[in-house]
């Protein structure tokens, strides 16, 4: 029954990516290449982040929240944003509309993130005899992460690819992008500084991901209108 549990958690963690790809017009326009390229860029970004973390970060003995370390981690987290910028702007994509480009990039990004961070613990842990809720919560977190990545990619494409934006919306766009980019630091603060338990943190992540998705959708359609 434990392989069953592994199977359940795997479809919770990786299913939505596949569903997203097949449900939206992404599959029709065959944007798989874009997603794969974005995944590779994510891998590269992860390696750079790893090296920076190893070089600059001190290992702390206890689980407490150290503001300076967290600030450092947040700064290194911006390398993520740089990677996304690279994936969105520098890579050559087939002639697909911006609409689909950011979705494909976000999807590839989130899929690589899930595989890198969640596949190994799942394979090792979920097949054991002992039952814990951790892997289901991890799957939910992967879902939230998918939504975050797509929102970030949307905001990123707004920031760097769209030339004519309404002036009033620009600060909002940057603010939202900032929030989404620092989400890992925020969750880490909640977990360590405030001592929230994992289910609560995952609930918070799900809620904020839906909120940010909604806001970025609104921003995106608002920026669409002048050029439409």
């Amino acid at each position, binding site marked *: 029954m434990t392989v069953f549990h592994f199977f359940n958690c795997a479809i919770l963690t990786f299913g939505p990516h596949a*569903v997203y790809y097949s449900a939206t017009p992404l599959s029709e326009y065959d944007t798989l290449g874009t997603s794969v390229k974005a995944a590779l860029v994510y891998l590269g970004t992860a390696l750079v982040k790893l090296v920076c973390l190893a070089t600059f970060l001190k290992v702390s003995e206890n689980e407490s929240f150290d503001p300076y370390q967290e600030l450092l981690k947040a700064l290194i987290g911006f390398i993520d944003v740089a990677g996304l910028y690279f994936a969105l702007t520098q890579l050559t994509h087939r002639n697909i509309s911006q609409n689909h480009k950011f979705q494909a990039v976000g999807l590839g990004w989130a899929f690589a993130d899930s595989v890198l961070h969640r596949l190994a613990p799942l394979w090792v842990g979920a097949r054991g005899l002992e039952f814990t809720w951790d892997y289901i919560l991890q799957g939910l977190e992967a879902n939230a992460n998918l939504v975050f990545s797509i929102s970030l990619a949307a905001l990123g494409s707004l920031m760097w690819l769209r030339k004519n934006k309404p002036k009033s919306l620009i600060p909002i766009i940057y603010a939202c992008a900032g929030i989404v980019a620092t989400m890992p630091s925020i969750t880490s603060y909640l977990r360590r500084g405030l001592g929230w338990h994992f289910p609560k943190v995952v609930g918070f992540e799900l809620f904020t991901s839906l909120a940010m998705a909604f806001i970025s959708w609104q921003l995106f359609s608002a920026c669409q209108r002048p050029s439409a």
Partner: protein
Amino acid sequence: MATRKPGDGPVLESVYSVIALVFVLVACAELCGAATVVDVYRLIQYDISGVPFGSRLAGLNHHASSLHFPPGADLSRTVLVIPVRDLNLSYVKDFLSQRQPLGGLLFLLPQIFSFDSKESTGDGEELLKNIVMELEKFLIHTNIPYPVYFAFENDDINTVLADIKKNDVSGQPATATTGGYKLVVSTAEPKKVASPIMSNIQGWLPGLKADGDPNQLPTIAIVASYDTFGAAPALSVGSDSNGSGVVALLEIARLFSLLYSNPKTRGRYNLLFGLTSGGPYNYNGTHKWLRSFDQRLRETIDYAICLNSIGSWNDELWIHVSKPPENAYIKQTFEGLSNVGDELGIKVGLKHKKINISNSRVAWEHEQFSRHRITAATLSELSTAPGLFENTGNLADSGNFVNEAAVIRSVKLVAESLARHIYGHQGKNIQIFADEGSLAVNPSYIRSWLDLLSRTPRVAPFLSKNDPFVMALKKELEEHMEEVILQNEVLDGIFTFYDSTKATLNIYQVASVTFDLLLLLVLGSYLIVLFSFLVITTRGLDDLISLFRRPPSRKVKTA
């Protein structure tokens, strides 16, 4: 671009309801802790002349249940977890005698019986001690065809047990289809111990031989058996039976070696100290040891004093003899001991039990001496002869229940009476081992040895040939005297023992199959809902419906 406003409401609500369902699942199933790992100790497995006794299996992989299981439940694949504290002994006895198929038994012992416990004893503990002793007696003499383990109570196991009880009371016994706890012990199947070895240690303190005296000096022997036997061999420390005897012997050896080190105070008796093994098995080791004696040595032994369980008495000790009390040596020994006893405030009684040569059961160590025609007596706090495997270091005989002061008084009693006999001061009121002198009984010596003995299980078949503890005893005797001999003998053939006495138990909380299926259902519907949501929002409702109609060659790739 299609606006998502019209289709928004009901779709969003369904997403929320899926999340709500997940939270309901969370609320129904209990949140669990990590897997618990506990040290467990197996019930002894042995044969007497081929007749099997004890627990015959070691591996365990079943669901756990408590005694509140629903009546008529099939228990052949369950392990019953029984805390000894609330044990209903007659119920358990009935249950075991009915020979119902059972996956296994796990008894939870209170912490007071463990090695490191330092709690004080009171009336409640006496009651517990009696219950444990009775349970043990029953288990040792029964053939049980499934694994039986003992474990100590701690917080983790107590929470697990409370959970199991709750599940059982609600009528939901743990099986493969409903969730619950699974107990797993993965050890190899027990094998016979090939040739169990008994190691006897003897020490010789020679007396002062006058020049020109051709005759051999008389010898006095002081003997104690050091090995134990109990329901859980890995827990059989025998602090009182016979750890107290061993400690007393070591202290007496130390005191007399101090006296004998100076030729001016060396007595005209040789002293022979014996730490024998094989005590629970009709003192087989003592028998083999005596059999190996030189005939001349045997003739010079005036008498022997055997020490057995002198650690938890209040003011009464017994001398057990097999020769009639009118015998000169017996009378002398008894009078000597009771005189010293009167001075120390100890009442010493005499008990005579005849030996039946045809009966192979040897209840006291002195009976082996008597069978080899050596006068001997046993000093013990027990007033009646113990039966087979009784008072041989059982589960209840842990360090908490032995009294260091009693051991000290016993040492004083034996040492004084011996010394008065050796130096010819019988009846005189002289204190050789006075409390403030250089020959005082050393309480910290006694305390540290008693502590060590209370932590060392000493079941002879499971002690290897050069076991460190036996070597330590030998080394300690070598500190006090020159001639120390270690003799290894094989335990007699009627007893066969099986290994695998200690294991680790893993307790897993497993989810039921229904839970997994339910989760699959939830996830499937979530993915379907997500799919339809995305199709509707990005491609429009018509596309969703057309997916189900499956018209041929619908998909058109646009550049």
